[in-house]
């Protein structure tokens, strides 16, 4: 049978049972919509969470000094380990797999003052490498600390986004002076606003940051609080960690096998776990959506059985006039597919519309809504949905169509 003729018959039948046909298609629309929305919001959430997670730093390893737990070269256990600025240079020189190294000092409850605005804040002294490792990017018109600031122990400060707001409101702050521990500092930059999923020592948006050398000369700290290391390749993280125990162990006199001498936070591992978790979540959402669509498919199959019962006479007439079983089979299979794909097309259209709307609606980056990110119907999501629709259409059509094709023409003609 030609396609045009088939469509003509289909349309005629559709109009005869408008309400029933519309409801059947609506079920598929709803199923498609559910699966797409779940997957699209899942994708948006994944992108946003990924971005939030990377706001601590991408592929970094954070190292704190610990306490020895194994006696070493006659020294007892329970010794505190300390990091000094020369350790940073040593690590950089000794481990070629490392791309960047930085370190920080930090102090809580330091007065940061702009005129009458006085706040007790978290103040850190950082290495310039933090800009890239810890995603300390400056907003337009400012900059982060650089090597010259370090070398000359300049009294310059980089303010976190929220702290800058508290100190200056909407006024421009770069080039202005703030007092930190009663010493004047020039503001050289303001950090970009960021949602930070992983953190230690408070969010970056609340910090005031100065060069590590400046910090050391003002506050006189003997030891660094922690180190931050970025390997050249995420795959070498394990190697870098074991080399770290060797290099720092030799320098600070502890056993390289003494795991408690250093306390390490490997965010690379976290990121891997995170990807796995997100994939799991997306599969879960896909299954939920798929089940909704499956129920719609059961509806289609059900309706197809009813349609075939109603049109038994028509099937009989066609068979008597020479329609082959295959022709009858194809007709009903195609009808089920047509229902599924027209419903699917409408569902995809509505979902895309909602995704577009969701990305247009303005959201405050600090509000809970912003954690949703932008729902996205990516190409794989679209393809998965179309494949599921096709499978459901074929399954929903195949069994009723097979029943229709197997009808006995002599009995069918008697059917009233």
């Amino acid at each position, binding site marked *: *049978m*030609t396609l*045009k*003729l088939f469509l003509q018959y289909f349309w*005629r039948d559709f109009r*005869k049972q408008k309400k029933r046909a519309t409801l059947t298609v609506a079920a598929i629309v709803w199923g498609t919509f559910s699966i797409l929305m779940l997957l699209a919001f899942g994708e948006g959430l994944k992108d946003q969470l990924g971005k939030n997670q990377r706001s601590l730093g991408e592929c970094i390893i954070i190292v704190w000094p610990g306490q020895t737990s194994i006696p070493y070269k006659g020294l007892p256990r329970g010794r505190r380990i300390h990091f000094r600025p020369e350790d940073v240079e040593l690590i950089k020189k000794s481990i070629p797999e490392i791309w960047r190294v930085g370190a920080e000092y930090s102090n809580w409850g330091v007065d940061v003052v702009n005129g009458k605005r006085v706040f007790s804040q978290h103040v850190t002294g950082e290495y310039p490498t933090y800009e890239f490792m810890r995603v300390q990017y400056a907003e337009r018109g400012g900059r982060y600390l650089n090597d010259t600031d370090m070398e000359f122990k300049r009294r310059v400060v980089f303010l976190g986004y929220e702290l800058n707001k508290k100190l200056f409101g909407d006024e421009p702050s770069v080039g202005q002076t703030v007092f930190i521990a009663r010493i004047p500092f020039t503001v050289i930059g303001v950090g970009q606003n960021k949602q930070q999923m992983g953190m230690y020592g408070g969010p970056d948006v609340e910090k005031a940051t100065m060069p590590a050398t400046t910090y050391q000369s003002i506050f006189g700290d003997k030891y660094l609080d922690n180190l931050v290391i970025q390997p050249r390749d995420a795959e070498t993280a394990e190697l870098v960690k074991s080399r770290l125990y060797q290099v720092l162990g030799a320098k600070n006199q502890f056993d390289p096998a003494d795991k408690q001498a250093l306390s390490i936070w490997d965010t690379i591992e976290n990121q891997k776990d995170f990807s796995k978790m997100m994939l799991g979540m997306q599969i879960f959402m896909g299954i939920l959506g798929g089940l909704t669509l499956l129920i719609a498919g059961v509806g289609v199959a059900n309706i197809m059985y009813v349609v075939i019962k109603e049109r038994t*006479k*028509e099937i*009989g*007439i*066609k*068979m*008597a*006039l*020479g*329609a*082959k*079983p*295959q*022709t009858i089979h194809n007709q009903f299979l195609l009808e089920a597919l047509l229902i599924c794909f027209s419903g699917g097309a409408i569902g995809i259209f509505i979902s895309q519309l909602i995704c577009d709307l969701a990305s247009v609606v303005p959201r405050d980056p600090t509000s809970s809504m912003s954690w949703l990110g932008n729902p996205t119907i990516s190409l794989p999501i679209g393809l998965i949905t179309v494949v599921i629709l096709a499978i459901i259409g074929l399954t929903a059509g195949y069994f009723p169509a097979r029943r229709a094709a197997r009808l*006995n*023409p*002599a009995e069918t*003609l*008697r059917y009233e």
Partner: protein
Amino acid sequence: MSSNGTMVKLSGVRKIYDTGKVKVEALRGIDLHVRRGEFMTLVGPSGSGKSTLMNILGCLDVPSEGTYEFDGQRVDRLPVSQLAEIRNRSIGFVFQNFNLLPYSTALENVELPLVFRGLGAKERRKRAAELLEKIGLGDRMEHKATELSGGQMQRVAIARALANNPPLLLADEPTGNLDSASGREIVDLFENLWKAGHTIMIITHDPNLPMRTERTIHLRDGRLEDGAAG
């Protein structure tokens, strides 16, 4: 095949319906020869097996036992798709209740056998229009089946039966649902078709119809009573 060859040859045909609990023997050994170009009537009371015989003759069903040669070809064991092809090309059906597709036009109904034969749209239309013209329904082509009278519907059905110009026409109570005037018109039409060379078999219980055909056979309790061997 010569014009006087055998169109239909049934030998020892039995049909047993097995419903699981009971077995019903609808046909109990039918031997029947129908020559090409014959105009015959099969008469029998209800329950005599008329419909079963018509289904087997029309390749809508297959016998449980016995053989059926149609136009020189054994068809009693053919697969369903080949039976469909024979119905399409070689047999035209006319039913008591017309069996038109109600929401299709007269033209579309007549086109249907041509669709299953795989003819192109233009050719189908031309052939269907010709047939309707010939049968006196040229002005009703675009009418839906439901908009036609009983006599008109039966004429559309006859035009449809003739669409692929089949050698055999099978009519099951073709006048059963018609008033006597329309019924006569239909019988006249069959007569004309017979004169034009079609083999026609009318199945009926109407005692007036047999008079007009060449040959009448009677079916009772699944057996032919007389004149069967032909």
